[in-house]
């Protein structure tokens, strides 16, 4: 997860106001506070995670993302971040809209379902892919929407969401040449910085 933190951090303007949707134990916010002097909040639904955020001195707010972000005003944050969460929410489209309403920019990361290993698992074995980025079995996965890089970009086009920056990481979570040339095949994790005119 470390390379992902660093890459996201590099996109964040120092002193920015950020909202982290599904902030887990607050590691990203703590990292951004330390390295980018950001202020902001994390939203989280799991009580044990919330206690961990509180202990780490990270501002965390108990919230259910599925209920939307109605407590937050338009453009009230510089960045709204969603790491590895988009595939686990039911109302994906609405949350993307909410994200770009509340934040001037959105940062999204997700596991790429088009990664070659997954394709091989389906093609050769006829089994749903299980791997580093998608570690769950089909029956216990919290991921309710699996999608590829091409799927996501098609949705962005349809919704007129601007892709301001994209970074695709390979199996070792490095942004190497391979995934840059063939992102949807060689990329295991995708990172996007989004905006809306």
């Amino acid at each position, binding site marked *: 997860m470390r390379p992902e933190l660093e890459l996201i951090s590099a996109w964040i303007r120092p002193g920015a106001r950020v909202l982290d949707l599904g*902030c887990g134990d607050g590691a990203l916010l703590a990292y951004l506070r330390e390295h980018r002097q950001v202020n902001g*909040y994390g939203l989280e639904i799991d009580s044990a*995670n919330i*206690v961990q955020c509180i202990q780490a*001195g990270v501002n*965390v707010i108990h919230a259910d993302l599925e209920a939307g972000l109605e407590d937050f*005003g338009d453009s009230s944050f510089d960045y709204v971040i969603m790491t590895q969460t988009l595939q686990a929410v039911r109302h994906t489209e609405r949350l993307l809209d909410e994200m770009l309403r509340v934040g001037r920019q959105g940062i999204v990361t997700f596991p790429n379902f088009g990664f070659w290993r997954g394709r091989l698992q389906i093609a050769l074995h006829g089994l749903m892919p299980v791997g580093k980025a998608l570690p769950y079995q089909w029956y216990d996965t919290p991921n309710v929407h699996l999608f590829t890089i091409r799927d996501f970009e098609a949705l962005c086009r349809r919704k007129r969401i601007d892709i301001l920056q994209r970074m695709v990481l390979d199996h070792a979570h490095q942004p190497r040449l391979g995934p840059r040339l063939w992102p949807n095949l060689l990329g295991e994790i995708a990172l996007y910085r989004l905006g809306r005119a």
Partner: protein
Amino acid sequence: MPHHFPPDSVGLVTPQTLRFEKPLALDCGRSLAEYELVYETYGTLNADHSNAVLICHALSSDHHAAGCHEGADPNKPGWWDNCIGPGKPFDTREFFVVCCNNLGGCKGSTGPTSINPENRKPYGPDFPIVTVKDWVRSQARLADRLGIRCWAAVIGGSLGGMQAMQWAITYPDRVRHALVIAAAPRLSAQNIAFNEVARQAIISDPDFHHGHYYEFGVVPRRGLMIARMLGHITYLSDEGMRAKFGRELREGTLNFNFDTEFQVESYLRHQGKAFVDRFDANTYLLMTKTLDYFDPAADFDQDLSAAFHRAQARFLVISFTSDWRFAPARSREIVRALVRAGREVSYSEISSEYGHDAFLMPIPLYHEALRGYLIPVAREANGRTPEPACAITPPAVEINAHAA
């Protein structure tokens, strides 16, 4: 025989009293020429007086928050003893904890049972109705006398949480952290309605004598008892009552009369009767009014976030799932206003079936949240620099529960 207290108890405690002779102007327009506040402290004030924590009490509690008084039953410590002591969430090895009985109370601070210097009789109903703001101003004077310029934290549940909020608004530079537990930004019509029924129960008791019952040597027992029984229902939850009492009968059979048949009736009557022996009816009336009047947004054009704009404290807001007196939605109103005001805030909704009373219960996740929040507060107050990267980036953490 001296009692041996457990190692995490503050042990024997003695209340102290301070007298204030400078008049205190009150929101109602009147002023108190002089008054006394009774309070207790636990722990030690550090050299630069930066480790003081104020505990604000709720409707019917008092300054005796922890430990035991000389000669009292050691199994019945102060009302928040499970939170206050060495190693407990409000750790007395780190903090100097202060709790006072609020003005208008009946446990030693000046209130309706005190003697009015003007006519040498108990104030009774003539005691002015005080507000949360009045309390906070009186507590600030107490802080001055104790040499506390700025509280490391002001903490309270229910009406106590309202005082913590008011502190952060009225004295922004005197509160570093505000812990607002099971509170609301103001009472709803339903909340006020319950208070009004309680008041009417007291006022309509023939022994009330327009509040001058002291002179008649009686107390409005029945009214106060009913008020407390009603209040108690609002402190519990439906599921909690079902788990505790169900429809259990005291004698195992229906008697077809109006005696106490169900266990829950017996419990409520017991609570009501016990309360009459320890609480004053005029104080109860006054405190319910203080609750009704609390509305910090009213001073800011009904804009709560404008009220919080001036606050500088960091906030921890906590609510409990089964609390219907001040439901989680009410705490979320507070959080929303704080976020809009750009204040630092964390909010946790604790799962519990104890209803409003949950804030007094040792619920593990709740106490962990309090403890977790206050550890860095203690570190900051006692001038210790945080350990490098204090749990900020533990090795091999996952960003998200769902994460790969």
